[in-house]
């Protein structure tokens, strides 16, 4: 059976309604939510809230059934054009066995998030054959002008994101990692997939395991010990996940330095940069480190499933070649 064609959601338009859910952890405070909804109003977007949004169970926003129910209810709601998780945290992976992937396939919608939301992005992208978006949660989409511009272009536009440029540098001072450090030179072209490394590791050996063949894989993490980054990358290498990948893009992995996790700290360490060179430097595919996505204030929105290219033979060139959304009115005409 040939694979069913990749589905793309309709671009979000002014006047549309979005559904705000908390599939992972709850909002820290009610005020976190109002700031996000004020921003949506400024964008001319209406919203509906998940019924269990403020619930709490351990570090999760209510029990698994409640969080899954909110996701299903708002996704099924024909007035809702996009599902925007409020934040990540922990717990999204727990929902996967409860999800109705046929609903997401029947009603393609925008889903945007990162960090813990990675579990939903990958599972729904693969199981429902839908473009999903690794970008800011609705609680963070206004962090910087760079973040917001890329977010709007990705979910409200119908043209390809095109050549990706970095945010402007501060006139003074240094930044680490450099934005596009070349770990391995080469050229690659393929569909995008990826997300937070911790979440990707958590899907290994399950039905939702990341598919990387022919893909440009983007990876990032936050506040992890370098040896834990090494462990997760080594697992992916051992599983052959980069054997037929087209390229690898590592985000800036903020806080991934010795002691960063406040747990599981070793007396001797290696930097993430040294680990990347050792584990990913000789795979024969292009690899860069330091692109702005994930746990940084500046972040691009990366659509899982669309064609992209990475050229690290000269100055690094990363282009998202294909549009992630379609025009709703065009669909209606059909």
């Amino acid at each position, binding site marked *: 059976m040939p694979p069913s064609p990749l589905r793309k959601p309709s671009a979000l338009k002014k006047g549309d309604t979005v559904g705000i859910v908390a599939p992972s952890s709850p909002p820290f405070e009610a005020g976190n939510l109002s700031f996000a909804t004020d921003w949506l109003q400024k964008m001319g977007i209406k919203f509906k809230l998940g019924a269990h949004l403020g619930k709490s169970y*351990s570090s999760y926003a209510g029990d698994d059934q409640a969080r899954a129910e909110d996701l299903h209810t708002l996704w099924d709601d024909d007035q809702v054009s996009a599902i925007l998780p409020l934040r990540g945290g922990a717990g999204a992976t727990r929902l996967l066995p409860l999800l109705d992937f046929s609903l997401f396939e029947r009603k393609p919608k925008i889903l945007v998030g990162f960090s813990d939301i990675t579990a939903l992005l990958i599972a729904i992208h693969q199981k429902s054959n839908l473009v999903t978006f690794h970008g800011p949660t609705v609680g963070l989409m206004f962090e910087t002008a760079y973040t917001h511009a890329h977010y709007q272009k990705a979910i409200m536009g119908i043209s390809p994101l095109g050549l990706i440029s970095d945010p402007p540098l501060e006139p003074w001072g240094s930044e680490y990692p450099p934005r596009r450090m070349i770990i391995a030179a080469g050229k690659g072209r393929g569909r995008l997939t990826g997300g937070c490394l911790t979440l990707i590791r958590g*899907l290994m050996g399950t039905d939702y395991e990341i598919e990387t063949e022919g893909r440009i894989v983007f990876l990032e993490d936050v506040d992890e010990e370098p040896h834990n980054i*090494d462990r997760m990358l080594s697992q992916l290498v051992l599983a052959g996940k980069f054997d037929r990948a087209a390229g690898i893009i590592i985000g800036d992995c903020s806080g991934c330095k010795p002691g960063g996790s406040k747990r599981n700290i070793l007396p001797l360490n290696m930097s993430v940069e040294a680990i990347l060179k050792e584990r990913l430097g000789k795979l024969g595919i292009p690899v860069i480190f330091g692109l702005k996505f994930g746990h940084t204030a500046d972040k691009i929105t990366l659509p899982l499933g669309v064609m992209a290219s990475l050229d690290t033979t000269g100055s690094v060139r990363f282009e998202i070649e294909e549009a992630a959304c379609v025009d709703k009115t065009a669909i209606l005409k059909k």
Partner: protein
Amino acid sequence: MLIKPPSLKSKDRIALLAPASRPAKPSALKRAEAIVSAMNFTPVVGAHALDMHGPMAGSDEARLCDLISAIEDDSIAAIWFLTGGYGSLHLISNLPYSTFAKNPKIVLGADDNSHLLFALHQASRVVTFYGNNLDRIDSKAAVERMAHFFAGTQCEDDNQLDYGAAQFPPLQVKDKVVADFCYAPVAGVKEGSVLAGNLTALVSLFGTKFEPQLSETILLLEDRNERNDILDRWFTTLYISNKLATIAALGLGRFENCGTRQSANMLSFEELVADRVSEINLPTCFNLPFGQSSDCAIVPLGLRASLDTAKGTLRYLESAFTGR
């Protein structure tokens, strides 16, 4: 067919290796040698045990060289790991598994070395042993117990554990009320072959060709220095992979220095696990004396055993060693 290593004779040579992290300090090596000598065996420290490469005891090549030499050298009767930490995952692609199956020997260790114990057991079908790394041996009683374990003889202490018996000594909570209160969210008695190790290490093998076969096993898990939500992540992987539902019974050991670790709103790992095992009705108990500290039992991977979760007792149905 399960392959069992022979137990040791006095003066037999034991390789002391660091396939993961570098031992904390040179005296750790000297101390390890003294412990093994006091047990009346001959210590042979790996050539690269104090090498340095990031957290690891030397490059992958150096650590691999020590481990392969010890597996291939017929004069080495057993391999005992010096410390855990991180790094053994890098070595499992290149081990001489068929040599090890033909010439099995005791391999003992814990923590990160779990990768090696799982891989050697899975790929060679040899019984490997989850038990203290040398840097966790911290009492005279522990030294004596290890001496009897390697020799396959009976301890002369209060417990009289006989490591050479037709049935390997059981793992059981000693003081069911105070020290090791055993909690069984799902009571049951199940038989299966034992798999035991570190939860983080087990999940690190998922999706790789070294992923342990969990079906019909009695699975014992432990971890160290980890926060409950992270432990729940890895336990969730077991659950959503549908592999948890295929095991016969689950025993949770010590989760040393684990907990909420300054998080403001987090349940115990026990509750997060109990939710799952209750739902699938998997016989499970907590607080078995299994883990990394020296009061924890040695657990042979691969032996047939029966776990009574309500009693907190794992009884082995066979011996761990071949006759000499």
